[in-house]
């Protein structure tokens, strides 16, 4: 009995939106650009733990000491952008596929100090550190879309992305030089909130907020001339984008 009631409720919930069957499907293409704070997360790697006194990557690498001219190494600030294809079915159901490019453009470099000879008495040395990350991803999400009259649509969707990343780091001091380069794939989880404001019946301005969660497995440094390094590429983080979309086809 309970099962029958539950089935009836679920079927009713699915059927509720059907009076709006008039617009069966709408398809749109769009482009957008925006920002991503902290692409790559803390950019931790084995060499930073073993040689440069940081157990949490770029966050812990910062040290300052009298007599050394250091500058804060901030997590990188990234820009992101891409193109999208989306479909809205029966006014309420939303599906989207896109292609994104993200890269760090600011931060991620500076000067710090480290103990160049951990076995001996304290031997601090100035260290120049640089971090950079580039990512490409194809997110595929499905979800719900709420239209507010003909002016505004707000949609929430979730899914996954096929993501490829390229992370490089370099550490240079008088007695040590290390460079790392890592490339890898993974499938991060994607959540997305998007708002659209229609300028005409077919053209909309959009803003979107997306959250990625996922990282590659541990990757081996492809530069073989120095200490072999190991790191993950972390795609986790928020991205906010602004763009335009054109609804080119309705059934």
């Amino acid at each position, binding site marked *: 009995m309970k099962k029958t009631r539950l089935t009836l409720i679920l079927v009713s919930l699915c059927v509720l939106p059907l009076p709006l069957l008039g617009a069966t499907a709408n398809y749109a293409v769009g482009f957008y650009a925006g920002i991503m704070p902290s692409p790559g997360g803390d950019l931790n790697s084995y060499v930073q733990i073993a040689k440069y006194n940081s157990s949490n990557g770029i966050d812990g690498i910062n*040290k300052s000491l009298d007599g050394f001219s250091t500058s*804060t190494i901030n997590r990188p600030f990234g820009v992101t952008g891409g193109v999208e294809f989306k479909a809205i079915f029966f006014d309420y159901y939303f599906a989207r596929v896109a292609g994104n490019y993200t890269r760090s453009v600011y931060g991620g470099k500076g000067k710090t100090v480290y103990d160049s000879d951990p076995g001996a008495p304290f031997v601090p040395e100035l260290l120049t550190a640089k971090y950079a990350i580039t990512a490409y991803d194809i997110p595929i999400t499905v979800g719900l879309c709420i239209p507010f009259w003909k002016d505004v649509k*707000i949609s929430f969707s979730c899914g996954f992305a096929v993501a490829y990343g390229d992370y490089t780091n370099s550490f240079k001091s008088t007695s040590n030089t290390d460079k790392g380069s890592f490339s890898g794939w993974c499938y991060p989880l994607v959540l997305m*909130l998007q708002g659209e404001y229609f300028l005409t019946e077919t053209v909309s301005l*959009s803003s979107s907020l997306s959250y990625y969660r996922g990282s590659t497995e541990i990757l081996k440094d492809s530069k073989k001339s120095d200490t072999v390094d190991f790191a993950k590429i972390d795609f986790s983080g928020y991205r*906010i984008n*602004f763009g335009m979309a054109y609804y080119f086809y309705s059934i």
Partner: protein
Amino acid sequence: MTDGRVLENSDAAETITRYSITYTGVPLFAGLNFPVQDIGEFYMGGGVEYFLAGGTISMGAQQKDISAMALGYGFIAGVQLNVTSKTRLYMEWEYIDARTGAIMQTTAAAWDNLYIDLTGHRIMVGFMYYVI
């Protein structure tokens, strides 16, 4: 303001036992507003926030005052509901990613190593009065 006590330190060399940090943030965001007829609006934006932080760190019997600044990046997303023609009730989700540089020595090594992580989510509820 964040206040806490370290009960079990994972790093034996780290001697912090208690901390109390207060910060002021000045955010600047730009984005899009989505009006929903005469009910209110939904908005999203990205931007920067400048932080001034201060506080006290206790390491055993020793107490040290700290001060630091940081620039962070992030976004806001929120809704505003019209209450009267000039006042609106709003609820806003803000996320900012920001860390200070090294500001204090907490280990046996002679350098400053402690940084303050100001990264996090903030949920704000309030009233907005539109002067113009």
